[in-house]
């Protein structure tokens, strides 16, 4: 199932209205853990959405970078769900959540070192092989640089480049995360963006954030801000057209408000596509 255009997340707050919405919506992304082994109303809503839109999945529970063995039961459930929905690509995060028998229920950063990159890459390969489909890994927000134990530190761009090349995986580029990380660590967002392996981008995420105690926190609970829209436009100019998702996961507003954000993303997507078309067309003197 090929995704294109701009989608939004399938969230329970919108279950009752989404299947009959009349505004433009190009695709939907779901958190697959919420739908493994589901039935009843969840299955009916998912079925109704599946009839109308292409679906993508975005996993949050696999702990790709963790040290504990991968959860084979969860992997099996995710594989079955992807098969049922005709989803051809899995997405997860360049992070870890579970270690030494404890799940932390969050997306935690690894040290930006070569051994950690190779560790994550090896596990990402295992996930890709187990699911039998391509894998995109998302650049996460990291609020602190994890200590490296004396290993040389890499830039985030070099680290992700190594991870994705070794894993033979694609990049799920979260533009808001680029912005939040850059500002939190005193870097230029455009420079951070340029350092990422953008040629591997298979999908883009957009979201809002908040400021707390002098730090930007990626909470997915606010509109996308203007600098992130501009960074998104800049990213698209480098990646070309890829499926785009607007995420709104906290203090979720009415569906129309989320679709307004999707419309704005679509307008930028079209602008950049037109720019590229004009640039590619022969000039008439």
């Amino acid at each position: 199932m090929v995704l294109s255009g701009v989608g939004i997340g399938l969230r329970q707050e919108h279950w009752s209205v989404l299947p009959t919405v009349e505004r433009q919506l190009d695709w939907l992304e779901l958190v697959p853990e919420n739908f493994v082994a589901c039935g009843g109303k969840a299955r009916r809503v998912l079925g109704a959405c599946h009839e109308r839109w292409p679906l993508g999945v975005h996993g949050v529970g696999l702990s790709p970078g963790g040290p504990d063995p991968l959860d084979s039961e969860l992997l099996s459930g995710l594989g079955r769900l992807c098969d049922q929905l005709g989803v051809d690509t899995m997405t997860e995060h360049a992070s870890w959540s579970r270690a030494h028998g404890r799940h932390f229920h969050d997306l935690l950063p690894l040290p930006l070192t070569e051994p950690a990159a190779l560790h994550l890459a090896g596990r990402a390969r295992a996930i890709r092989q187990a699911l039998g489909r391509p894998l995109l890994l998302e650049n996460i927000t990291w609020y602190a640089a994890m200590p490296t134990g004396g290993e040389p530190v890499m830039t985030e761009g070099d680290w992700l480049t190594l991870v994705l090349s070794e894993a033979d995986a694609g990049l799920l580029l979260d533009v808001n995360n680029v912005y939040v990380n850059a500002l939190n660590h005193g870097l230029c967002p455009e420079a951070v963006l340029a350092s990422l392996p953008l040629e591997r981008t298979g999908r883009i995420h957009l979201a809002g954030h908040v400021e707390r105690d002098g730090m930007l926190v990626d909470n997915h609970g606010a509109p996308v801000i203007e600098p992130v829209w501009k960074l998104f436009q800049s990213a698209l100019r480098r990646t070309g057209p890829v499926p785009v998702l607007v995420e709104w996961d906290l203090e979720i507003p009415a569906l129309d408000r989320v679709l307004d954000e999707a419309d704005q993303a679509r307008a930028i997507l079209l602008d950049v596509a037109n720019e590229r078309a004009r640039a590619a067309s022969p000039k008439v003197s």
Partner: protein
Amino acid sequence: MSEPDPHASVVAFFDRVVPFLSGQTTCEELAAQLGPSRSPPRRLLFYQRLMAANVRRILRAVFPVVADIIAHPERVGLATVTSWERLSSDFIAAHPTAHWSPNALGAAFPEYLEARVDLPRGLADLATWCLQLLAARTAEAGVGHLAAGVSAAHHRFDVARLTASLAEATPGAALREDLAAAARGPAIVLVAYRLPSGDVRVLRPDPFEVAALGLASGEVDRDALGALQVDRLADARGRLIALGLIIDAGECG
């Protein structure tokens, strides 16, 4: 599916960072073990505090009545024993869970409360009731695992919505009032949960309503209630029917 053995520095990282994130070691100890972070200590502490907050919020979402009583024991005539923060932290240290679903985080919470002799008796029963309500509501939604990331970074699991509904369905204020009333003297507090709607009703039944419930359940013989006035018993039964606690067929709701 084969996974490579992690490099020694990766093993060392997890060996040290898990106790730190679990609140068992300090920033200084982490720095001594793994070298300093390029980020200031407060940024590392953000993660330690975030992990503790995740546990508190997940448990509060699943066990709102227990959290209310721990936070405000005076409302039910109890003395302060511990804080929700401390209780959550002690619980997860004793019962860490590897399951990816936050809904599984509190599976052992009733058992843990039961074993804590310093806590008021009855909390374990309330916690069990909360788990039953959670299970019923996930079944009602048709979802096997309503999981949730409740941290700032990770809200996409569905427990946030689920527990918002749970909180609405759970009569926190009403239950507190009834428990407070109970604390002033002996009283029966009836918490009724109706399937499949998940509606919760709280009632302090008077003696006639208790008798009517007993009759409706079939556990009490009418002859045993001979001294009770028939019309007041009928009124009580009517009130219980109106509340949806007894249906006309005579079964207990």
